[in-house]
């Protein structure tokens, strides 16, 4: 039962918020959301000493599950900070934004703390349904379009996943992921693996299941896009890690490798031409998903590099989205012209995140890429690393282009932006963590390598 505590806290505070919101106590509803995240994070610390399987093995609170859950909660907290202030500015007056974030986070936590396919699916659906609603929260054409597209394609991918589960059940007679079962290269298992992978590749935005990403990011409210870019990815990659045993099957492995190659090339190339910052971030997130998926090829051994990358990536991406939110949906790159004069702190923050995303030292973005690439290279995939590095060279162009727009292009009228105090707090916190992880990564790496 103890394993349910974090989930119960999240859902419980979500329901309290729902009730409060019903009585138009919007501020209290938001507070309940913050409280839920903090309380659930604290409960994770207590759970850490009681690691193991719970509820007949349906929930697995191991070190990587707990660490990933913590990441999910921390990043959701950052998303809260980013959304706080932004929401009223764009006319989202109901408190349901925070309630949906809480439920989505609960779904993500379920996904990362189980090794049972049905439970993964339940978590994924909780996360997805909340996400579809989140994408459509802004009341305009683009947002609604994003919501519908995400929902229809999301259901499509869920069908793949369910079909994969059915095939898996047909072969093994249960839905627990066991090492012996996934290593079985029978035709039925291969097909099962492909369908399960397809479902998760959709969530992680890997080519060719990435196709929803740019439209949905562009249409969703900026904090929500930030949430999709990291929390959904953490959940998907952790679930991926649990079924990475399938990769001993060459057909499945080559399916993933082919997808990785297409992803890093496609993501980076198309990002070069984007004029909309959120589409640019979408393609950037596709490329990063490609890099991270390389760690899956190593199975459990790549886990620490993947988690380190996710930790840094979350701060870089949410940091950028804190700035993007501050420009209240003026998302064309042209809107960033002259930002360095009008809002020096926002411009400097954005420049820092872009540099980190491009992977320059001494930012965490550099170390994350370095550890991931060297680990994958040491695992025998040097040629794949070479492709990824060549493709990532292109990314320098589009990341620095944002900096060029902010610093080197002036314009007559003033850029439109607003300083949201909590969003600025999120920005500075992200900068701090990126520098911390970039300069003193030792503690985290020590932790990850010991426990994962």
């Amino acid at each position, binding site marked *: 039962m103890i394993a349910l505590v974090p989930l119960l806290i999240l859902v419980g505070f979500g329901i309290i918020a729902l009730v409060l919101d019903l009585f138009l106590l919007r501020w209290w509803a938001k507070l309940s959301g913050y409280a839920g995240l903090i309380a659930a994070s604290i409960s994770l610390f207590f759970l850490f000493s009681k690691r193991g399987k719970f509820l007949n093995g349906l929930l697995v609170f191991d070190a990587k599950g707990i660490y990933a859950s913590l990441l999910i909660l921390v990043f959701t907290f950052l998303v809260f900070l980013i959304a706080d202030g932004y929401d009223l500015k764009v006319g989202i007056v109901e408190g349901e934004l925070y309630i949906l974030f809480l439920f989505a986070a609960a779904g993500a936590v379920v996904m990362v703390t189980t090794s049972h396919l049905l439970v993964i699916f339940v978590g994924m659906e909780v996360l997805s349904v909340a996400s579809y609603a989140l994408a459509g929260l802004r009341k305009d054409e683009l947002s609604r379009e994003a919501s*519908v*597209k995400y929902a*229809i*394609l999301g259901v*499509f*991918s869920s069908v*793949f996943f369910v079909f994969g589960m059915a095939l898996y059940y047909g072969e093994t007679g249960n839905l627990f992921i066991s090492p012996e079962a996934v290593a079985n*290269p029978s*035709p039925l298992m*291969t*097909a099962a693996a*492909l*369908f399960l*992978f*397809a479902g998760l*590749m*959709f969530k992680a935005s890997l*080519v*060719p*299941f990435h*196709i*929803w990403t*740019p*439209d949905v990011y562009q249409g969703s409210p900026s904090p929500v896009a930030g949430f999709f870019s990291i929390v959904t990815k953490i959940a998907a990659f952790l679930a991926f890690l649990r079924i990475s045993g399938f990769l001993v*099957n*060459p*057909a*499945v492995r*080559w*399916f993933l490798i*082919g*997808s990785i190659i297409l992803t890093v090339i*496609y993501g980076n*190339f*198309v*990002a*070069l*031409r*984007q004029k909309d910052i959120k589409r640019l971030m979408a393609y950037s997130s596709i490329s990063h998903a490609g890099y991270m998926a390389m760690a899956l090829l190593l199975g459990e051994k790549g886990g620490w590099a993947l988690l380190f990358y996710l930790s840094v990536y979350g701060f870089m991406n949410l940091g950028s989205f804190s700035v993007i939110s501050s420009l209240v949906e003026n998302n064309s790159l042209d809107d960033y012209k002259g930002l360095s004069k009008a809002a020096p702190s926002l411009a400097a923050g954005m420049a820092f995140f872009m540099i980190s995303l491009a992977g320059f030292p001494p930012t965490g973005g550099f170390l994350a890429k370095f550890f991931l690439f060297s680990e994958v290279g040491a695992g025998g995939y040097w040629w794949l690393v070479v492709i990824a590095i060549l493709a990532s060279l*292109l990314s320098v*162009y589009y990341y620095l282009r944002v900096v060029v727009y902010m610093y080197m292009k002036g314009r007559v009228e003033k850029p439109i932006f607003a300083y949201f105090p909590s969003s600025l707090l999120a920005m500075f916190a992200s900068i701090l963590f990126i520098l911390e992880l970039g300069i003193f990564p030792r503690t985290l790496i020590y932790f990850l390598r010991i426990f994962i």
Partner: protein
Amino acid sequence: MRELFWLIPLFPAFGAAFLILFGRVISRKLVSWLAPSLVGLSFLFSLLSYIQLNGVWVKELFSWIKVGNLSIPFALQFDPLSSIMAVTVSGVSFLIHIYSIGYMANDWGYNRYFAYLNLFTFSMLLLVLSANLPLMFIGWEGVGLCSYLLIGFWFEKDAAADAGKKAFIVNRIGDFGFLLGIFLLFTLFGNLSFNYINSHVSAVSPGIATAAALLLFVGATGKSAQLPLYIWLPDAMEGPTPVSALIHAATMVTAGVYMVSRLFPLYQHSGFALELVAWVGIITAIFAATIALAQNDIKRVLAYSTISQIGYMFAGVGVGAVAAGMFHLFTHAFFKSLLFLCAGAVIHGVGTNDMRKMGGLRKAMPVTFWTFLIAALTISGIPGFSAFFSKDEILKEAYLSGHKWIWAIGVITAGLTAFYIFRLIFMTFYGEYRGEGHPHEAPKVMLIPMSILALFSIIGGWFPKSFAHYLSPLGYIKVIEASHSLEIYLLGASLILAIIGIYIAWLVYVKRKGKGWNFGFVYRVIYGKYYVDELYNFLFVTPYRKGSELINRYFDKGVIDRTVEGSGEAALGGGNLLSKLQTGLLKDYGLWMATGIIIGLFLAIRSLL
């Protein structure tokens, strides 16, 4: 002091940092107190450490670089060799800081000047006190940087900016060799501390030791202005005169000699490298001395004289007499910085560098005249003055070690030295005043350091025991005793030539007033400095520039730029093409995902067949 000597370089480091950060806002008065007194503290600490020194002190402050099997501690070493350098550097630097208060009083860059000067003192002290080669290299590059900054101190003057650039580029050539030498030593020994290398030289073959020693010596010829890389030093005289005295006479340019002495066992093991050091030194000595004969710029005469005297030091170290070389380095620091400070006082008084516009200054500037005369007598090797002992020591050791030719060239150079320095004295202080305006004596703040240096120029050589005795704890310095009669003959030879030199100078420039002596072609060649600068221009600079232009035009613009721009355009085009795939239509998106799973299934089926 054993636990505190590592503070010696830190005082000026603090001063430099403070002046660079706050130099714009603090008053000149504060700078005038702060900068010299910090260097004074360094001097005090050096002196106290020197007095208490026994054996070799090594202090490891922290582990600086640790990568793989390369481990370099930030370690300083205080031993007989580095103690002499530390005392000399901090002492001379202290006096020159004080002199600069007067000399730079009216300069708009006063605070910047002292920031650089402090930074230089720090780098130089780091260079001499470092216990390993990489740390020495930091100091080595640091003094090079300060030299560049101070030569080009009056950067609004084209000549100064060009001279700074020239010094920097020529030194880079040398430093490249130095760096390669460090790399080679690391692969040979796996440890770059001086003590380790010196005690393990026998482990490598003499051939490879020669290679390493010569690479390091390339660096030394650059920094210490020896053939063939001496050409930057005369131009370096564009900097302020106290800088010329400190950096380009007393301290930095002797770094090469110090380095060779520091790694003497390596050079000794090689044999050939040591011989080459001796010959490069002595040929530079006579070569530069002849150029000095015909120069009319007072500072250029001294610059060539510096090159020549450092040549002596290398010759001394090269014939195996480290102690004699270091002894001459020690005395030279005093008399040569004195010569420069006197020249500075003269320039300060008459407002020109050109000796043809001076003359008869004896009456207007009596203190300067007397101190200048003391320095001139010292450099000429007149008995009783300090350089007499040190130069004699070098020549004696050269003779005793069987290098008779080196001895002979050295004696002739001594004659030339006496001639050019007294030519300078006679042209400046005797005869009629040939310039305009009213020459006047320098202020006290300049005269006091000059007088102190004059005192040291005289007594600097009066050591009760030989230098070799003091250096012997290092383990590789041997003390040779010569018979007294031989010593007197050797002494006599150089003394006679020196007196002849002075006499000819008197004859030409006082008695005949510089008229009626024309050597024609020879004079023109010497006056044109053997046209070495022109030769280098023809051989290296012009072809390099032409080649660069060609490469720029054809290779850089044609090949590289086109490749870069082309690949950039190709990437953008690719992006354009791929982004067409994003149609925005839901049915197309569904098709993408279906295609993906179909390809997957195709792969699965293929693997079954």
